[in-house]
């Protein structure tokens, strides 16, 4: 089993993801350079947070044209697992691998804080170790995490159970006071229709060790590992 963490110029959570996978969870992990096309036989590709290419045009807008993203699109077509975190989520949207858009936060500021999330779908490879409706604590850190899509699309993704995480209060309250960025229906993360691609604004790699105050994010990586262990044989 092998994980790949894509490095774009301006990625700044690449090493954090690498550290959790290779040092905390002890799974084989490699960096994938944005100018390469070879995914080196990875079973799961992670698009990490940061400011790819400086986010100068629009967050994630330049990254989608990188050679590595061509390979990632092919990988998705073949049913590979892709997790986009923060800027990685923005890149997935710009690449058309997930629907919707991320607008600037409601109050116009960058926001870094712990948030509570409700796990809405535990059938995905990324969330299978959670219990349905589980409330977890994972931090966010972004300037553009305000998820938006037209209402017809929203109905569709809800119908397909593509909404995976919603911001909420410590007891699961869903009022807007617990929505840190103005996201539509408190959406914090969504998946592709086949659940093989997940994009989320919160940073699971920042909540994967006891010393950092939460290990809820680790369960996402552990879910993927469990899923790969079960499904890998079928793929090769």
């Amino acid at each position, binding site marked *: 089993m092998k994980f790949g963490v894509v490095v774009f*110029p301006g990625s700044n959570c690449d090493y954090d993801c690498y550290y959790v996978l290779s040092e905390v969870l002890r799974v084989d992990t490699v960096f994938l350079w944005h100018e390469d096309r070879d995914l080196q036989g990875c079973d799961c590709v992670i698009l990490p947070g940061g*400011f790819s290419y400086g986010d100068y045009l629009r967050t994630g807008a330049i990254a989608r044209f990188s050679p590595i993203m061509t390979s990632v699109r092919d990988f998705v077509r073949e049913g590979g697992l892709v997790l986009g975190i923060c800027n990685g989520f923005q890149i997935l949207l710009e690449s058309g691998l997930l629907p919707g858009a991320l607008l600037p936060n409601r109050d116009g500021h*960058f926001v*870094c804080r712990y948030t509570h999330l409700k796990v809405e779908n535990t059938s995905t490879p990324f969330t299978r170790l959670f219990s349905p409706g589980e409330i977890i604590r994972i931090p966010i850190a972004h300037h553009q995490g305000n998820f938006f899509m037209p209402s017809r699309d929203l109905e569709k993704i809800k119908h397909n159970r593509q909404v995976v995480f919603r911001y909420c209060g*410590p007891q699961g309250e869903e009022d807007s006071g617990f929505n840190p960025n103005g996201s539509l229906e408190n959406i914090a993360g969504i998946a592709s229709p086949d659940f093989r691609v997940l994009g989320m604004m919160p940073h699971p790699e*920042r909540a994967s060790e006891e010393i*950092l105050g939460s290990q809820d994010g680790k369960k996402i990586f552990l879910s993927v590992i469990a899923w790969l262990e079960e499904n890998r044989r079928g793929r090769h």
Partner: protein
Amino acid sequence: MEDIEKVSEELGLRKEEYQRIVEILGRTPTPTEVAMFSVEWSEHCGYPHSRKWFELFPREGHFPALFGEDAGGILYDDLAIIFKMESHNHPSQIEPRQGAATGIGGIIRDILGSGARPIACLDSLHFGPVEDRNARHVFRGVVDGIAFYGNCVGVPTVGGELYFHPSYRGNCLVNVMCVGIAEKSKLARAVAQGRDNIILYVGNKTGRDGIGGCSILASQEFAEGEEKRPSVQIGDPFTEKCLIEATLEALATGFVVGIKDMGAAGLTCSASEMAAAGRSGIELDLDRVPLREEGMEAWEIMMSESQERMLLCVTRGHEEEVRQIFKKWGLEAEVVGSVNESGKVTIFYRGEVVADIPALELTAPPIYTPPREKPAYLQAVNDDSRLNSLPLPRNYEEIVLRMIASPNLCSRRWVYEQYDHMVQTNTVVLPGKGTPVLRVKGKKWGIAVTTDCNPVYCYLDPYRGAQIAVAEAALNLSACGARPAGITDCLNFGNPEKPERYWQFVEAVRGIADASRFFGLPIVSGNVSFYNESPQGAVHPTPTIGMVGIIENVERAVGGVFKEEGHVVVLLGDIKEELGGSEYLRVIHGLEVGPPPSLSLADEKKLQELLIELAHRGIVTAALDVSEGGLVFALLEACLGGEVPLGVVVDVKRWENLRMDAVLFGESRGRALVSVREDAYLPVERMARERGIPCFLLGKVGGKDFLVQSGGRVLVSLPVGELKRTWEQVLS
């Protein structure tokens, strides 16, 4: 001839300095040479008015210290912890967003130049009153600039200070500290050495931005109606992030002999100081410098402060290998010169020699110690007879509510949440939860960091104020369980050519030196910013102390927020009847009078040792120092800092014979507040007694109210939920 002398004057050089340049060169300088001297000898780069006094600073302490060309640090385990603080005051006053942003960029490159990976930033910020429209504009712009640059560059902003005071109305202070770590064996130096080795220019292109930033902007007062914006540099954090990665990759090749940031004074500073430090000469060909625009003159190229640039000295024969690393990261990387043994900095442009200066002389600016004089205001503001006649408040709840709305005492959440304080996943104690603590991956130990200074104390008594800044920083570190290890300072003062300002400066330096020597703390790096004056006057003396400590077992790091109901609240150190210099006097009585709190360095040291021991043994559940706002505000911070606020019940009857406002809001030094499980109180009391530290059981965590009483008399009873909302909304 007269023309060049005039140019020299316009660039800020004195007449006698010009004469000295002629002597050094044995001829009339060229315009490029005058430009180079003007930046290298400026207050910002050469420290002519302050350098002499650094001799007072201790260079040794509990941990081995390290002194580099640009930043210093301490050695621990197999690592070096490198840190430095620097000011970006003047640029931030003129263009808050870019001024602050490029301040971050510059200090990060200083740390990077030591071969260290930057792991944390802290910002000590001082602005005019938040009610003041322009001050608010500067404050918001600076916070925005720090977020813009710091978040993108991937270095967490984990702490700092925020202080509002009228003295900063026309001249804000933006002091930025960066901490980095490197393997001891892999430290880099800012030297050019080895005949024929290659000088490689990397990073951004050179443009006309920031020309004269250090000589014109940072070395003069603000005068009415002046337009200085073109001297402010423009930052590009994306390039900086790539520069960090590429530089660390280049250093790992082993072919980089020396490296230096092109910051203040740009190419002039990096080339001349690398040559001087290496006892070598450097030859530069400016035709090969990547330029942003055509038609730049040699002096413009040499003075430009374009951001995100570094100068490297690379082993000849390996320049292409190193160049390719920077190219891979999309950066400029051009061979611009070579090392020789001439001892001179020789600059060629368009086929001509435009400068040829001995490097050692260029980097040894004159030393000035102008007259100093004890300011007349001191006697009037230190008359404490006025304090005894102050009426006691009738309603303490009202006082708490007025003080909690003071921008100097309210929550900093609105600010620190705009900064990514978790990237790199090392932040163990988050901002707002106590003294920031970072783990070091793969190590049991961790690093605690803080910045401190109370400018009102320093205004009332610069010597004691500076000592208190050192003591408070050390206490903040000890509270979380860290042993104070080393200091970087950022000394912000007015015009040193005015005797009263210079007196304040020298007193503060003496205070820092004496306190840090007493505590066994080396001062490993620092920065001086003079001329912080506007037509409205000088800033309060602000010698900001940045301090780094080592926490032996990072899993035992203690935060400053109460954790659970039922824990008991303990005061270590005693309450004295001291109100001088307090926020209470300023906010409630509109008075800024002293003397500032008395200070016993010996008592401080004892308390530091006790707190480190308590944390190390896992006895305390929260610990924090008692400072601005006194006992009540230490309690409030501990109650309100958590995601869910906790109530508290405390009793101060023991001190009923003192003025109650001094008991609640006085800022006596040598005190800390801790919480412990109820059964751990007796061991704490015993340990305190053994060390001769007063120890008082104040009360208990719990309930929905912030309740302070004296015997049966309720002084303050306010619901914590409401208090938290007020406390957190002041700045937003």
